[in-house]
């Protein structure tokens, strides 16, 4: 286990994100810079300075050439991973709560916050994957979310759909070329915000985390709910593990709410569920505050969690984790071999 402390600041909520090779983790906190870490030992590789507000979100392109970040300073910034140079800054009227690259790294989307006079928007930019190239000022697309505020969004397989999660507990499927709304389905409890949306490797399905204390696995093609994972605490994040059929959920009440209920039940554990059977199979302790983000290593070797306590914790899975199988899974593997 590797714990990476953040530098002291007022609010420390950490949101880690792996690159595709699983060797680098990018994390953002409210302390206005992005950090890059080696996942195997927690050594800091670099920092990215330029934002002048809390940073809410970071994503890395498939070749670990560029990262994008979204901030309370109302900008999306694009950075060169290697030189830490701020390659481009796009400005908005409100804060940017989420950014995500498409699977081929040719598009970047951002979700902007709703604030008096402004609806939340999903904005899309075409990205030139060459870090030396000039990036466009023009948006390729703007989707105005006038029904319910979008909280999270991402590109599906083949960059076909933009899938968004909303404040009202629904998910939307948009045509990623035209921005046209194809479908909107209430999958979580009404008016319980969806706060995270993460993809499986080929982006044909995704997991949502919701304040209604559940996570759901949903098909991108038709928004069918495939699986539901009930928890006993409001969730902040959910991720799908490659190699094993598990999902990891993270959440917990904020300190303020805990004292009002039960001080003992902070519930600051990462919860592992079997992806297919929906059973909870284990918990991992470590944080002293709610888990803000859980992220699965794309190579399946580890996972990272970011907490309100200001730490990013990286857990490398042991043999027991990889060996764990239900009897029917063992049966299936034997049949296939």
């Amino acid at each position, binding site marked *: 286990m590797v714990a990476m402390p953040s530098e002291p600041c007022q609010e420390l909520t950490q949101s880690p994100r792996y690159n595709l090779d699983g060797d680098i983790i990018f994390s953002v906190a409210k302390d206005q810079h992005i950090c890059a870490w080696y996942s195997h030992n927690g050594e800091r590789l670099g920092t990215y300075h330029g934002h002048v507000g809390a940073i809410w979100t970071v994503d890395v392109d498939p*070749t670990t050439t560029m990262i994008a970040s979204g901030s309370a300073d109302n900008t999306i910034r694009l950075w060169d991973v290697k030189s830490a140079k701020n390659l481009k800054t796009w400005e908005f009227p409100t804060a940017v709560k989420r950014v995500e690259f498409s699977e081929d790294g040719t598009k970047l989307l951002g979700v902007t916050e709703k604030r008096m006079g402004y609806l939340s928007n999903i904005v899309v930019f075409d990205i030139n994957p060459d870090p030396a190239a000039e990036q466009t000022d023009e948006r390729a697309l703007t989707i105005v979310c006038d029904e319910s505020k979008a909280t999270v969004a991402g590109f599906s397989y083949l960059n076909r759909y933009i899938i968004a999660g909303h404040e009202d507990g629904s998910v939307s499927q948009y045509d990623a070329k035209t921005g046209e709304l194809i479908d909107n389905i209430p999958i979580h409890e009404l008016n319980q915000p969806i706060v995270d949306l993460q993809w499986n490797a080929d982006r044909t399905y995704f997991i949502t985390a919701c304040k209604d204390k559940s996570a759901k696995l949903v098909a991108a093609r038709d928004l069918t709910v495939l699986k539901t994972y009930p928890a006993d605490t409001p969730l902040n994040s959910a991720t799908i593990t490659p190699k094993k059929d598990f999902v990891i959920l993270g959440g917990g009440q904020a300190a303020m709410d805990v004292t009002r209920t039960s001080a003992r039940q902070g519930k600051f554990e990462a919860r592992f569920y079997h992806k297919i059977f929906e059973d909870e199979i284990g918990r991992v302790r470590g944080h002293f505050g709610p888990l803000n983000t859980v992220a699965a290593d794309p190579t399946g070797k580890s996972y990272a969690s970011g907490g309100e306590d200001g730490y990013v914790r990286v857990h490398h899975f042991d043999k027991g984790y990889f060996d764990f199988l239900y009897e029917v899974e063992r049966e299936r593997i034997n049949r296939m071999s």
Partner: protein
Amino acid sequence: EDADRGASADLAVVEARRHLLNEWYEWRENMEAELAEERERAGLPKDPHTHLLEAKTKTLQVADQEQVVE
């Protein structure tokens, strides 16, 4: 008798899991086949990342060689 009942309940659980497992993998196989077909039809490589990573590796190798020349 209780043991029998317990055993049949266990059997039902196992049977239900077997069903869930088959259902999941059937769905995955269909989805993967559909995706592979659509990628091929669009003239895209099978995997969205392999060629990108290969191209990046090549540029890094070129950069390394240039450094050696210096």
